[in-house]
């Protein structure tokens, strides 16, 4: 692995961490519940991207399944919370 790719991976992971921290501020401060759900959904997406980048870093296929699972679980949980905010219950 060339030095440029290693540095790019390190910078990317650092940027993802910083973005997650910024979103965490929105989660903690968000004036309404839907702001928190939106920020949590984006944190899920960033977690998925982190798994993919770590997969490139270690040249391993294992992290791909983890990324797919994180994406699907993020979708299900965000949908459940949006439904709860809309109706007051998840399954009617």
């Amino acid at each position, binding site marked *: *692995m*060339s030095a*440029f*790719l290693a*540095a*790019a*991976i390190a*910078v*990317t992971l*650092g*940027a*993802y961490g*910083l*973005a*997650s921290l*910024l*979103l965490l*501020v*929105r989660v903690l401060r968000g004036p*309404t*519940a*839907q*702001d928190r*759900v*939106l*920020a949590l*959904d*984006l944190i899920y*997406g*960033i977690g*998925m*991207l982190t798994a*993919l*980048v770590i*997969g*490139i870093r270690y*040249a*391993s*296929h294992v992290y*791909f399944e983890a*990324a*797919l699972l994180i*994406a*699907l679980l*993020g*979708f299900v949980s*965000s*949908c459940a919370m*949006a*439904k709860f*905010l*809309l109706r007051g219950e998840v399954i009617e």
Partner: protein
Amino acid sequence: MTAAAVPLWAQILVGCLLLLSAVLTLAAAWGVLRLRDFFERLHPPALALVGSAWCVTLASMLFFSLHDGELQLRAWLIIITLSITVPITTVMLSRAALFRARRKPCGDLLPPPLHPEHTIESAGPGDTRAG
């Protein structure tokens, strides 16, 4: 299982795609943090969940195709999954936010309705849910 098999131009291309995704993700997070109300904050996640995800997925496909010596397109599943799930999440969240904002109006937070004749009290003929 080392990354030495990947040629240098591909490593530089993968690195550039990853750096672009880092910039897009930071922009999305900064936008979610800085924009004023929820309906403006709905927009920046598309930067991360579409632009950044496409960059990382293309980088992953390129890297593993050259690393394994055969075409590896499994990362397309990520793109397909995201392109199905992200609009659904956005629409459900925006509907929930509109519903809550109409029940408790607070100033200019509520965007104007697209069709002014369809108000909540009298659903128009186009509203199939009304019966």
